[in-house]
């Protein structure tokens, strides 16, 4: 992908965010009960959905690695896990602020909130344990198995409000202008999430190939060791 296209993509994403903020200030109606803080919802929900997809990508890439043992799958899994942590942090922070206004308390151990916190912790641990595992192939295998198991929490987060009594709303009725705002905000948040995964993956690939080039300096053939790509 050319540099111009990448720059255009990021510029468009930034412009869409600016448009979204302008929309919130000038056009989106203020909710009567909660006031302006309700507008946090327009970034909270898209970030939550994108978190699920980032976790799903880690899950798919982990299975890909276990089946094919190619480092590109491991790079993709760790890249999407990094993005999942960032997005899950956004979900937790905005949710906490929203909860303070809606429920009068920053945090409550309801099923949805608890499983969401566990999800965040699972992927933080994923990123923390990777550097401590010696050997790139061993690290990739352990990470892949962990990436598959960690994903099991995603259905729990999604289904918790439907299967268990929960203070967290399972659906919200919105006025048409609010629905348009929510639909719009999916665009910049999704574009940013995709851009982050691609950028982080490219960085990981470059780092992997960089270390492979270092290793090949010490081999007779100059070829990258098996399984490195």
């Amino acid at each position: 992908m050319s540099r111009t296209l990448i720059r255009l993509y990021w510029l468009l994403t930034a412009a869409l965010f600016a448009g979204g903020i302008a929309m919130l200030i000038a056009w989106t109606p203020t909710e009567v009960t909660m006031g302006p803080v309700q507008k946090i919802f327009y970034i909270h929900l898209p970030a939550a959905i994108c978190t699920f997809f980032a976790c799903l990508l880690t899950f798919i890439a982990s299975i890909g690695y276990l089946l094919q043992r190619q480092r590109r799958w491991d790079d993709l899994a760790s890249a999407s896990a990094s993005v999942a942590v960032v997005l899950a942090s956004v979900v937790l922070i905005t949710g906490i602020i929203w909860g303070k206004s809606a429920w009068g308390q920053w945090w409550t151990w309801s099923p949805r909130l608890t499983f969401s916190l566990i999800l965040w912790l699972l992927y933080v641990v994923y990123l923390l344990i990777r550097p401590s595992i010696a050997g790139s192939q061993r690290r990739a295998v352990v990470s892949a198995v962990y990436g598959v198991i960690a994903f099991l929490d995603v259905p729990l987060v999604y289904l918790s409000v439907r299967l268990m009594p929960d203070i967290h709303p399972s659906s919200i009725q919105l006025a048409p202008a609010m629905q348009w705002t929510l639909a719009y905000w999916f665009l910049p948040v999704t574009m940013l999430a995709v851009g982050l995964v691609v950028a982080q993956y490219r960085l990981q690939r470059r780092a992997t190939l960089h270390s492979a080039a270092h290793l090949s300096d010490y081999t007779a053939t100059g070829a990258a060791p098996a399984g490195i790509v």
Partner: protein
Amino acid sequence: MSQEETFGILGYAAALGLMWGYAAWIWLAGRKLGRSNSATDEHR
């Protein structure tokens, strides 16, 4: 400014700061890696 407005602005600032801050970190890490690659090539 009301407390609701302050909370709303804080929420968006934190969310956008995290996401765009992470994008900036990736960009900086890419530049650092690029410089490191150039140094390795020169060494060879």
